[in-house]
């Protein structure tokens, strides 16, 4: 009886400890998620009228919205453009920095520094490169006698320019995970391979790369999340333009909610983002965590 009471008290105490976090999470994570789902079923009320229930009408609009498909496609291209490139670069950087290299400290610092800059500052700096007349890229091209490219104004180039900047910003962050994994690898592997006379190329593909698979998957999850979550640079570089050529899903949400004041449609697009994140989370928890374990 006494033990039972003590248990009870522990439970209550524990619940009280959880309370502040629970209240905050409910207010700023669960409640808005549910509200997003509900609002996506309404149409905005104009002139002070309350929003009216519309069933799946917003989703109907979404399917018929050419801009939405364009933005979704952009986001896919953006993910495909940034993720493999930055992962490959990150791996290359980690291999470089892990080897004996003169000036290793500087090289590592150079790779990692973009990670700690705000995206806004990074975009500002890259704006100096991309700007049409006075930008550095076009000045250099001009000096070499080529006509300039409209890096951010030409719809066929702009998304590529945004992708390049993002790769620059992200690769160094992913590098540190590869570097940690490489440093944790048993040196005996390399020694054994040397004894066997294995070439560095096949050692990399047969031993290093497979052993780094958990890191690659982990980095991949992070990169996927960032591809839908980070749109700060668009505010400086392109504002989603020209003609939505660089618009991404979350930026389109922002536009709908705070420029076009269509909250319910913004909620509908948010549902799409939440679905993408849910897929990523399921892949991570259900598949990856079962097969690999992280350090």
């Amino acid at each position, binding site marked *: 009886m006494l033990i039972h009471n003590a*248990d009870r008290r*522990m*439970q209550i105490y*524990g619940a009280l*400890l*959880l309370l*502040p*976090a629970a209240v*905050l*999470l409910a*207010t*700023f994570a*669960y*409640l808005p*998620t549910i*509200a*997003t789902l509900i*609002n996506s079923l309404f149409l905005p009320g104009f002139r002070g009228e309350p929003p009216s229930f519309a069933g799946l009408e917003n989703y109907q609009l979404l399917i018929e919205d050419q801009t939405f498909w364009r933005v979704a496609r952009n986001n896919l291209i953006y993910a495909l453009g940034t993720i493999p490139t930055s992962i490959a670069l990150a791996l290359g*950087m980690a291999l*470089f*920095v892990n*080897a*004996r*290299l*003169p*000036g290793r400290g*500087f*090289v590592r*610092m*150079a*790779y990692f*520094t*973009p*990670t*700690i*800059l*705000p*995206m*806004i500052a990074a975009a*500002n*700096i890259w*704006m*100096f*490169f991309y700007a049409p007349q006075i930008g*550095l890229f076009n*000045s250099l091209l001009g000096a070499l006698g080529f006509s300039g490219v409209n890096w951010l104004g030409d719809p066929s180039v702009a998304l590529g320019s945004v992708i390049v900047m993002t790769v620059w910003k992200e690769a160094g962050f992913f590098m*540190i*995970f590869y570097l*940690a994994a490489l440093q944790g690898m048993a040196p005996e592997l390399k020694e054994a391979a040397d004894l066997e006379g294995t070439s560095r190329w096949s050692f990399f593909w047969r031993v290093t790369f497979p052993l780094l698979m958990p890191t690659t998957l982990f980095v991949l999850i992070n990169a996927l*999340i960032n591809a839908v979550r980070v*749109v*700060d640079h668009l*505010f*400086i570089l392109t504002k989603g333009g020209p003609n939505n050529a660089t618009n991404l899903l979350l930026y389109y*949400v*922002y536009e709908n909610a705070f420029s076009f004041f269509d*909250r319910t449609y913004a*909620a509908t697009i*948010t549902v799409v983002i939440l679905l993408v994140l849910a897929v990523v989370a399921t892949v991570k*928890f259900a598949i990856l965590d079962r097969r690999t374990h992280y350090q």
Partner: protein
Amino acid sequence: MSQTTLNASARRTALRLPGLETTAAWLLAIIWIFPLLYALWAAFHPPEFMVRFELLAPLTLDNFANAWEQAPFARYYLNTFLLVTGVVLAQFVVCTLAGFAFARFPIPGKDILFMLVLIQLFVFPEVLIVENYQIASSLGLVNTITGIGLPYVASAFGIFLLRQTFKTIPRELEDAARIEGCGWMAILMKVYVPLARPTYLAYGLVSISHHWNNFLWPLVVTNSVESRPLTVGLGVFSAPETGVNWATVSAATLLSIAPLLIAFLLFQRQFVQSFLRSGIR
């Protein structure tokens, strides 16, 4: 004698390695650091030297003076400073309590609750800007520094990290403290928190960098100088349509990143370690 041959052979291997790989590594490093060096060049030279690289171009601080004059950077600094300290301190308190509960208390349905917390690793406040703006506005938090920070206080990442750390602390220490008459709060403050110091450092550094750099949610929830942090201030200041001269934008950009950048250069190891630890989500 053997020492010198060893050195010589070591030097030979060191010399053999260069060539292609070292060149590639260095080339990539130079490309990677170049944008930042260029920002430094642009900020410390008069505007006409933006794309003219002359070794003897005159140095100037005018761009910084202009930036400082044209936008209320002092206020932005204060706001960012208040935001970052407030968020990190509040996160420490809330996440410590929750992490402690998850690590040591028999709460019914604990595993399910913990999974619910982990959802926040994927559903961030900035993804929910539309509804979070609504909620912040109904709580009267729009255009306040509290409004920028509050959605991030119950951080799943912090709760997760502290729970892991607390779980590794031997129960014997807790029992010893109890024998000395400590209650739960005293045990937490005297045993768990001090032993988790490296975790607090790592989490604190990641959180500081994140909130120093955060943009989208602060942009949405603020609308005046009184509450805007540096990133939003910089975004407003340097938006291309404002037509501010580039050398000034460059100086403003450096002003906004300087404290974090300098801290990073001084404490590189700690920063990199912290970011590594952040890799759990």
